[in-house]
C-alpha cells in the first residue's frame, strides 16, 4: 500500500493556496499537481497571480491558507534556502544573475550548499550551454539577455534540483532565443527534472506543457494537459487571443 502511495505522490502539489503581500490576497485558492516527468505551465492574464503562485511555491510569499507539498511533505512558509536543500531551484524573471560576478562564479553559487560537486556540475552545465564556455571569465552583467537566461538556468541546475521553477524565462528575448530556451526546458525535463514555469508566450509554452494551469483572479480557471487547453475554444477565446 505504501509503495503504491509513494509512486502516485506528485512531485509538487498545491491545495487551495491563498496568499499575498501585506494582507492583500492575490491568490484565492490555487490547485496544482505535477509529476517529476512533467512540464507544468502557468498562463493567464496580467494580474492573475501567475508569478505570485510561483513565489508562493518557493517560499517567497506568506501562504495564509491551503498547503503546498513537495514529495508529499508540506513546504509552505519554509525559507527559500531550506527549499534549495530539498531540491528546488528557482530562476526569477528579473535580476536572475549576479552582475559583477563572472559567469563561472555565478554558476558556482548554484552549488554553494554542495561545494564538492562544483567541478562535475560545471562540466555538465557547460556541456548543456556551450556558449557559456568562452564567456566564463566575463562578468554576467555584460552578457546579452539570452546568455544571461542561460547563466540563470545554469546556476539553478548546478544544485541538481528535482523541481525547477522558471518565471517567464523567455520574457524580452528574440524569437530565436525563445525557441532555444523552450528546447532547453524540454531537455532538462527529459533528464528527470520536474518543471513549473510561468509564461507570457502562452501558445508556445502550452505546446510543450504536459500540464497547463490557466489562472484568473488568483484561481484556476482551466486545468488540463497543454494540448487539450490549446484545443479548447473557450481557453483560446479568453486567454490566447482567439
Amino acid at each position, binding site marked *: 500500500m505504501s509503495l503504491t502511495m509513494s509512486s502516485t505522490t506528485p512531485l509538487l502539489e498545491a491545495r487551495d493556496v491563498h496568499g499575498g503581500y501585506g494582507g492583500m490576497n492575490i491568490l484565492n485558492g490555487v490547485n496544482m499537481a505535477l509529476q517529476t516527468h512533467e512540464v507544468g505551465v502557468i498562463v493567464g492574464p496580467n494580474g492573475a497571480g501567475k508569478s505570485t503562485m510561483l513565489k508562493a511555491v*518557493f517560499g517567497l510569499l506568506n501562504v495564509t491558507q491551503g498547503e503546498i507539498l513537495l514529495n508529499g511533505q508540506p513546504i509552505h512558509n519554509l525559507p527559500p534556502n531550506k527549499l534549495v536543500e530539498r531540491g528546488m531551484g528557482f530562476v*526569477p524573471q528579473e535580476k536572475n544573475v549576479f552582475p559583477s560576478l563572472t559567469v563561472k562564479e555565478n554558476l*558556482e*553559487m548554484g552549488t554553494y550548499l554542495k561545494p564538492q560537486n562544483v567541478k562535475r556540475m560545471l562540466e555538465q552545465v557547460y556541456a548543456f550551454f556551450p556558449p557559456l564556455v568562452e564567456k566564463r571569465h566575463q562578468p554576467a552583467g555584460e552578457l546579452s539577455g539570452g546568455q544571461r537566461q542561460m547563466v540563470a538556468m545554469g*546556476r539553478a541546475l548546478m544544485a541538481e534540483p528535482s523541481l525547477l521553477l522558471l518565471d517567464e524565462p523567455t520574457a524580452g528575448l528574440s524569437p530565436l532565443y525563445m525557441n532555444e530556451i523552450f528546447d532547453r526546458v524540454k531537455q532538462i525535463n527529459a533528464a528527470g527534472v520536474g518543471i513549473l514555469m510561468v509564461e507570457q508566450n502562452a501558445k508556445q509554452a502550452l505546446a510543450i506543457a504536459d500540464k497547463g494551469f490557466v489562472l484568473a483572479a488568483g484561481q484556476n480557471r482551466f486545468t488540463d494537459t497543454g494540448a487539450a487547453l490549446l484545443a479548447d475554444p473557450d481557453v483560446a477565446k479568453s486567454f490566447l487571443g482567439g
Partner: protein
Amino acid sequence: MNELVFFINNVIIAGSVTGSIYAIGAIGVTLIFSIMRFAHFAHADMMTFGAFMVLLLTTLFPAAGASIGVPTALVMLPLAMLLTATLAVGIDKAFYKPLRVHGVKPIVLVIGSLGVTLMLQGLIRLFSGTGGQSLYVDDRKEIFRLALPFEGARAPIVITEPQLYLFVITLVAVVALHVFLNRSRLGKAMRAMSDNPELAQASGINTNTIVAVTWVIAGGLAAIAGTLLSLDVTFKPDLSFFLLLPIFAAAIVGGVGHPYGAIAGGFVVGFAETLAVFNWNVLLRPFRDSLPTWLELPSNLAFVGTEYKIVVPFFILVAILVWRPTGLFKGKVIQ
C-alpha cells in the same frame, strides 16, 4: 634638493599614512553598506575600540613585544582584532538585527548606529579617560632618517617605525581581502549577496552567515585602522571619531559598495588633504630669483590652514555627490 625632501616627507609619506588609514576604514564602511545597505556611523568608534583594546593589552603585558623585537602593540593587534570582531558581531545581534528583522528603512539603521557610536564613545571614555596615551608603553618609537645620496641634500627623508608597519600591514590586509573575496567560497558568496541578496538566498546562501562574516571582517579592519592611527600619533578616545567624515568621503568617492574603490578613495582623500595643507611656497623658493620682482610670495602658500583640514574631505564629498554620485568606480547610489 631639500625642498624635494620636504615635499616627500610632508606630502608623499604623510599622504600615504593618512590614505592607508582612510582606505582601511573605508573598506569596512563599504563592505557593511554592500551587505546590509546602511551607512554605519559607529565604524569610527569601532576603530577606537580596537585601539583601546590594544592599549589595554599592551599595558597588561608591556614586555610581550621585546622578546621578538616588534612593538608590543603590534603583538597585541591580532587579539584586539578578534575582540573588536566579537564586539561588532555582538552589536549587530543586539541592535541592528532586531531592526533588520522588522524590515525597517535603512535610515532607521543609520540612526541606530549613531546611538551605538555615542554608547561606544561613552564606554571607552569611562575606562580610558579623556586624555591622550601612547601605545608605546614600554618600547621606544624608532625614527629612521634616510639621507639622499645627492649633493646639497642636507635634510633626510624621515619615516617612523609605526609608519613602516602601517604600510606593510595595509598592503597585507588589502591583498588578503582581495584573495578572500575572489578565491574563497565565502568571499564569493559575500560578493553575490552584495550584487543580489534575493538571488543569493535563492541559491541557498545563508544570509545570516554572510552578515556575521561581514561584521568580523569590518571589526578586524577597524581594529587595524584604529591601532595604526594611534601608533602613528597617540591614542585618544575621540581620535577616530573625527575620521568619520573623511572615511565616508573616501567610501563615496570610490563608489559605495566597491572595496577597491574604497582603497582608491582613501588615498584620493588622504592625498587631497595633505596637498591642501602643504605650503607650496617651499617648492617655489629655489626659483625665487627668476620670479618677477613685483610678485611677492606670502610665506604660507597652503590652500587651507592645517586647522581647517576637515573642509577638504567635506568639499570632496559634496563635489562627488553633485558631479559623480556613483563614485570613481561605479558604486551603488545611496538613497
